[in-house]
């Protein structure tokens, strides 16, 4: 199976790839291949960010980071599918799955491309909060680009003349917000990815209260010396 060839096809000729999705061509293979390469890329990035703490954290993050993106996809997929078909979409579940795996694959490639930068900062700066915010910025930026490409891709696959397209565009924008919320909260649930200094290794933090955004504010305040 040429999984990386499928990814290269997506990156090089996105228009043709989306056309294949629209025409429902070889989607099972595309979905599986994109899942595999996304898992590999996220696992490498997860291992790098985990390596800033310990070997155990490195292994845990290599599994948890791909899981974060794939589980978010799995949680949000039914909402998008059922709402869209309710408002006149003619696409099937497989096509929605393919569209969502393309977004995850694109994000994984973008995140993977930041690996050398993150590695450089691991070796040159030892500030935990800076490293945390740097990675949040990388994931935020890649997420925004991925989501933007997904939005454009969805519009291309559905077509401008599709029934109820204005309403469905708004729905899609709302769904993207939901995707971001679910992703960030799942990230909070699956933490730690970095492993805080002076704390023993834990697969998950025992305390479940709090949220992702409050932690970002705390980290920013600590970094700025408040």
């Amino acid at each position: 199976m040429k999984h990386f060839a499928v990814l290269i096809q997506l990156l090089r000729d996105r228009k043709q790839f989306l056309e294949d999705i629209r025409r429902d061509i070889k989607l099972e293979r595309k979905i599986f291949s994109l899942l595999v390469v996304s898992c590999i890329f996220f696992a490498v990035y997860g291992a790098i960010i985990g390596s800033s703490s310990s070997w155990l954290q490195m292994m845990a993050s290599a599994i948890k980071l791909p899981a974060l993106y794939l589980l978010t996809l799995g949680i949000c997929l039914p909402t998008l599918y059922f709402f869209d078909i309710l408002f006149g979409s003619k696409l099937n579940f497989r096509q929605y799955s393919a569209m969502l795996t393309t977004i995850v694959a694109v994000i994984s490639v973008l995140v993977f491309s930041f690996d050398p930068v993150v590695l450089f900062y691991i070796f040159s700066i030892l500030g935990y909060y800076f490293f945390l915010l740097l990675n949040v910025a990388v994931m935020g930026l890649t997420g925004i680009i991925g989501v933007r490409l997904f939005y454009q891709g969805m519009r291309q696959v559905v077509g401008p003349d599709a029934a109820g397209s204005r309403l469905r565009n708004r729905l899609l924008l709302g769904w993207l917000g939901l995707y971001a919320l679910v992703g960030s909260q799942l990230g909070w649930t699956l933490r730690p990815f970095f492993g805080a200094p002076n704390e023993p290794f834990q697969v998950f933090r025992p305390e479940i209260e709090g949220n992702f955004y409050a932690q970002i504010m705390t980290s920013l305040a600590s970094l700025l010396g408040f």
Partner: protein
Amino acid sequence: MSRANLDSLRITNQDLDELTGLDISDLSMGWGTRLSVFQQPRRLWVWLINQGLVLTVALVLWLPMCLVLGRNLATPSLSLVVGVLGAIATTIAQSLYGFYKGQQLKILSHLLDEVDRFNEMVKAVEILEELRQSDLTSKRLALEHPEAVKEALHLTRESLVCGLASDKIMRKHQRFIARRHELFASIETNLSSLHALQASELAGDYAQLLNEALHVGTTVHQALRQIMPPD
């Protein structure tokens, strides 16, 4: 025989997708696993690597999910075991389903193997042709009857395409054909019984086409052996 001519003879993956209506690869045909996977060591290795990747994806999904859901349990190791077992069970289920679907598409699997052999044959002729062009003075590498070879390859291609198209039709009307005995019983009274007869005839034709494909393939193989140099 030009290279372009030989290229047009080759049955590409895209042709196979269109002819079969399934996503065809070296390992699979749609959701089914090709039977040749278990007969050729190289393909078996690729299949095993692929199943390893399925297990990896399953582990990535199962393990954190079970650990998160079971974080409040008294025995967290139980979540770990459930996660790993769930991933292994998913991989085994996927493999078994592929094998089951592959068994249902046995005829197609054999036809695809024949297509692979045919493409290899075209490649062999192409290589011979290239060698001949690189050494025009030597007659040793030249095909004695290039037109006859081309005709034989063309006939084999036609037979294989016919076989694949017939298989697609048979699969499309599988339920209908499975009911043919029941329909034969009421042939005098039911008009649809006539259609069943046609389906049966189609099945006969299909078998004949397959035989022809095999026969032509064998003939081409023998012809090629005759025209190939002894060393």
